[in-house]
């Protein structure tokens, strides 16, 4: 009980305190509000001030980051859009808090189901961002978004997202998840090729 422990501890705080200034001087003002500064903050050598001044500064989100699902549509050359969703209902069935609601389209003449959702809702108040819908979708039609700034003034009027609000183009998906996108497209191309080959061999 000679106070040495306390002094050593205070030494640590003092070193840390001085360290923040040293760190600032080393970076010559480029420590904050720059990409390099943020990367330094996330690296193994991170030192100095650890906090980020949100919303001026933002930590980059990694590719796998997941927040609220969206529906992917493809844009054709002629300007028309094509929804990948076939309303098979797997996402609605696997959703743990059951926040996905789908109305399947039926052909008015035959009464048989058409592979396209008539309506698609996600109650984002209830969504728990688990990512199962995206994980188990066999058509790569529903994916998790990166946009986490969703606050609204009135949840009763805003927070049930309909099909229009949920739909985002494939190019957007490719931009937020490039690695996943490329991998999935390769698999799709392979499946297409296999299908074409099978068709060709059946005809030939």
């Amino acid at each position, binding site marked *: *009980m*000679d*106070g*040495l*422990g*306390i002094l*050593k*501890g205070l030494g*640590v*705080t003092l070193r*840390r305190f001085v360290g923040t200034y040293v760190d600032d001087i080393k970076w010559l003002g480029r420590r904050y509000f720059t990409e390099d500064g943020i990367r330094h903050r*996330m690296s*193994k*050598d*991170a030192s100095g001030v*650890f906090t980020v001044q949100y919303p001026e500064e933002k930590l980059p*989100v*990694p*590719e*796998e*980051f*997941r927040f609220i699902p969206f529906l992917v549509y493809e844009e054709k050359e002629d300007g028309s859009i094509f929804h990948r969703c076939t*309303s098979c*209902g*797997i996402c*609605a*069935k*696997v*959703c*743990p808090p*059951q926040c*996905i*609601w*789908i*109305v*399947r389209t039926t052909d008015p003449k035959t009464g048989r*189901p058409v592979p396209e959702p008539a*309506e698609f*809702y996600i*109650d984002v108040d209830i969504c*728990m*961002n*688990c*990512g*199962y819908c995206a*994980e*188990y979708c066999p058509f790569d039609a529903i994916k*998790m978004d990166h946009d986490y700034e969703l606050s609204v003034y009135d949840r009763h009027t805003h927070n*049930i997202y309909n099909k229009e609000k949920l739909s985002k183009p494939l190019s957007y998906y490719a931009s937020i998840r490039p*690695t996943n996108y490329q991998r999935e497209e390769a698999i799709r191309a392979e499946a297409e090729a296999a299908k074409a080959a099978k068709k060709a061999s059946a005809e030939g």
Partner: protein
Amino acid sequence: MMEQAILTDVDLAEKFPQKVKRDERKGYEGYLVDADAFLQVAQFVRDEMGYDYLSSVTGVDYFPENYLESVYHFYRTTGGPALVLKVQTPRDNAVVPSLVPLYPGAEFQEREAWDLLGIRYEGHPDLRRILMWEGFAGHPLRKDWREPYYEEDGKPFKSRWPDGHVYRIEDKNPFHKNVDYPADFDPDQWAPDNDASLYASLKKIQSSLSDSGLKTDTVIVNMGPQHPSTHGVFRMVVLLEGETIRALKPVMGYLHRNHEKIGERNTFLMNMPFTDRLDYLSSMSNNFGYALAVEKLMGIQPPERAEYLRVIMAEFTRISNHLFAIGSLLNDLGAYFTPMLYAIEERELILDIFEAVAGSRMMCNYFRFGGVARDLPEGVYEKMRDLAYERLPRRIDELDLYLTNNEIIRARCEGVGVLTAEDAIAFSASGPLLRASGVPYDIRRADPYSIYDRFEFDVAVRYHGDVYDRYLIRMDEIRQSIRILQQAIRDLPEGPIQSGKPQYQVRVPAGEAYGRVEAPKGELGYYVVSNGKPNPWRYHVRAPSFVNITALETMAKGNKVADSVAILGSIDIVLGELDR
């Protein structure tokens, strides 16, 4: 401890004919014991067979067969597999002898089973509700009990697809109109319990106090539920004589959401993200335990790479959790937030890894039955390696220098809140709490799961059982976790990360399984019963925070009231798990 011959491999059914028989239902293990012989059998199991540690007490409502079953999992603190005993009672008169006289650690777990399932434990010293409030109608985990926003018995709900015209459940089924009152209930005549029975149970102790010869009055003080030292909404009711604690009762359930009922409505897979929300500081470990339990039922094994990834994630979780625990303990001691923020800088970097791998910093939802959700993205392996080999060891040394020999910390912590080894075992304490009391019991060694038997690490143990040792043991465990991490990251093999194809509907054969892991806070167990349907029939969580709190009164008695804050902080509770 006393040397005595321990009987191994006794067939209880032969030892107690007519009273005990083997549980021969398909997929079940252990013995069925008659209620009237239960105490005798439990005494034999404890004293002769050496099963000194009662891990889990819970119940199952076998509604179609019309009986309730009380399920007990016993272990030896010397290691080895479980002994499972079950007592069956009729649903309308469910009475089972209480195990509290033999295993004091059963106290809160039996109260929980009484509260949620309505099994009355005869001989329990204080059988009140624990998670629900006094006056609550019914026992919510019974299969015929329905929640106010009841929709269907099991998910997925039919209203969602293919005719999913969206609505909010509270619009169709407004609050107040959706509650079932008992037939004889009159709201005007009803008076709330106002904790009369709680205070009465404390007052019993009052009359026996007179060690100074002076006649002093005792005071009852409520610490919490809104108190910054309780780590959330938790309440300690203390009986004080001067400043000394004479008795203490924890009150909990403010955050109760009946996780287990939700789990029984869910399908097996849907429960995985819900487990994240139990102990939200260590979601990877929660995933681990649940995945183990269901994999046991399904009889599948994850591939090598997935096993390594699981261990890496679980150990990173342990480090981040212990850093948080140390930081908040220092907060409780009055070192306001500087140590906390120093500690959680490293946690921040660990969470960056989780976010890159699992997609979320805290609600990871990373484990799947038979593997993990996805492989490491590019660059993460290097990040993990740098952390485990370079940064974390350095930073832990700094934290050590900063705190460990600080005279104020030592003065506040040494000799405070002592829990002896015997008490720790008797109260079913687990994790750092148990090991700081001198019991080297770590499930990773004692009953190894996953691939923990391949790694070289020491089971951290300290012998004083006070708050200071519980701080030290967390530092020790961080260092051991770093050792495991270094080996696992070095040996991480290539290969698939899931056995079989990912399925959104898993087929789980009928049976029961108890999967337990050494979570950062202690033994985390999942008791899962399947009847072959898509939803689990029973889903029980043996939460370490909840069971560890049983020993709180013993630790706090005789200490000053200010120390109760440090003692609670040293247990390291998380209310999401405590209240479930």
